[in-house]
């Protein structure tokens, strides 16, 4: 087995050209699986509704006004506004409420810290359906807030488990010396967090914000529970699911609406790709 001769360096280096062709062919083929759904959704979104019922795959005419029609569908523009307001406000509240908690869990020593971390992980893994019945009764019957997005927004002012977890993972890597140095300069813990730790943590804050924004943008169950009775409060994800039924067999408009819902998250991803991928990596275990 052990041959130190130069004749057997690496099996995969024997045919570099062949290997290059094989790897790239495979990569492109796999790429088709990921890319083609987007392509066909797009092609369908610019067809006439009659053509979507044929077996013709390429648009005979390019009906760009489909996107305008979707936009003019009653409710669609409102759902957009609701979703942007919900995702933006929710993300801001999450950051303000979760970062101090993450900092305490990463940098303070106190009894029960491990227990606190376990509760964070347990709530992070908790299916929302487990507590939804009492939560709904609380918001709808006690506080009369059903038909609005407030039951989904207000809890974010009290910390979000996944954001706390992700931020804590990052803050562990901030050397304690920086915090100590800030304290010797006379900062208290809050000042050390705001003036020293947070400026060093911009990529992590960006990642946490993106994750939360995407989560709120995509969430279906929450809006379904609290807003289904009031279409004026629907978000895009919830509205989109009812779009197909409202348009019967109009697959072209449904696919145009689908693209309009996908577009902002994909665009945001390309703008902030680096922070995002760093964040995904942080969610994993180390080593």
């Amino acid at each position, binding site marked *: 087995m052990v041959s130190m001769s130069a004749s057997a360096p690496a099996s995969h280096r024997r045919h570099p050209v062949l290997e290059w062709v094989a790897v790239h062919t495979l*990569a492109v083929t796999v790429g088709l699986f990921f890319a083609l759904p987007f392509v066909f*959704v797009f092609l369908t979104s610019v067809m006439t509704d009659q053509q979507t019922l044929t077996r013709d795959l390429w648009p005979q005419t390019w009906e760009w006004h489909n996107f305008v029609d979707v936009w003019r569908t009653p409710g669609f523009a409102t759902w957009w506004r609701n979703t942007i307001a919900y995702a933006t406000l929710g993300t801001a509240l999450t950051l303000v409420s979760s970062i101090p908690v993450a900092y305490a869990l990463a940098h303070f020593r106190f009894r029960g810290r491990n227990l606190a971390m376990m509760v*964070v992980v347990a709530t992070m893994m908790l299916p929302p*359906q487990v507590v939804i*019945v009492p939560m709904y009764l609380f918001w709808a019957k006690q506080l009369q807030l059903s038909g609005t997005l407030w039951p989904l927004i207000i*809890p974010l002012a*009290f910390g979000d488990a996944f954001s706390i977890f992700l931020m804590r993972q990052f803050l562990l890597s901030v050397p304690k010396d920086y915090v100590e140095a800030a304290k010797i300069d006379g900062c208290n813990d809050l000042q050390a967090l705001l003036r020293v730790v947070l400026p060093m943590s911009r990529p992590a804050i960006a990642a946490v914000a993106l994750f939360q924004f995407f989560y709120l943008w995509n969430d279906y169950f929450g809006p379904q529970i609290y807003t289904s009775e009031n279409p004026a409060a629907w978000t895009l994800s919830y509205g989109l699911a009812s779009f197909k039924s409202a348009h019967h067999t109009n697959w072209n408009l449904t696919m145009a609406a689908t693209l309009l819902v996908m577009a902002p998250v*994909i665009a945001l991803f390309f703008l902030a790709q680096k922070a995002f991928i760093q964040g995904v990596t942080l969610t994993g275990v180390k080593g």
Partner: protein
Amino acid sequence: MTLTIEGSKRRSSYRPVTRSARRRRDLVRNLAFLSPWLVGTGLFFLYPLVATAYFSFTHYDGFTAPRWTGLQNWFYVFQDYPFFWPAMRNTIWLVVVIVTLRVLVGVAVAQLVIAVKRGGGFFRTLYYAPYLVPPVAGTLAFVFLLNPGTGVVNIVLGRLGLPQPGWFNDPAWSKPSLTLLALWTVGDLMVIFLASLLDVPQELYEAAELDGAGAVRRFRFVTLPYIRPILVFAAVTGIIATMQYYTEPLVAGQVASGQIGGSGQQTEPGYPDGSTLTLPQLVYNLGFQRFDIGAACVIALVLFALCMVFAALLMRRGSGFLAED
């Protein structure tokens, strides 16, 4: 100590303090930082969890006061409720197939991105993009692409002379269709695996090559031991996520069946033929459409127990999940 005193603002933190005073100050500080989360955990986790447990022993329709009925709901769900065991069977099928395939495909795709070397960044972005698609939008797209009549996939299969399954409209094919959708969004695992595969020391590969190990043996004896913790992590979080599978099967069932999901209308979940029923859908259906809150809470607690068993696996000592460095 006196050297550091320059202004009155700094006085408090460097006054000579007794141990107990210091401890009290730390306690106040800890509580101040943790208070929003402590309140939130009590209000939005512990209280509703206890309430759910209480409701599971009562007859409650949400309008008249709950009436204590002991274990009646529990017997009903396990013995008489016709959808509980089908939903459990679906969940086991989905967990086994989706989690296994997502981990395998995730590793394979990550290896492929590494093998491409130059230009790998392009493929990484391409493979990752579907993960970002909102689940409702992705599900709608797949129901359309796979629809038996005019869907692209069956048109192509037809032209190739291959059989054309009913996909989301056929009980035998609905779960495989959901699996395809879950594999389309494998990008999150790819990125995690990519980071850990790139961490494997190159010297180990070179040493193995010198020993004459082929690609398979190099993967088995060098790569695999290195990325094992991350594989376990991906599998366990995948199991937890799949047990909570809700939006995709619900929307796929509604859209494929042509049912209207809007306000207040009852839908028969799990189309076609209960084949896409999952536990969270039962909670919604029982609690919010049939107003059988007691039975809904039983299923919610079963779901809770299942998820916490696997969450406990993650938090075991040495799993690396809660490691501090």
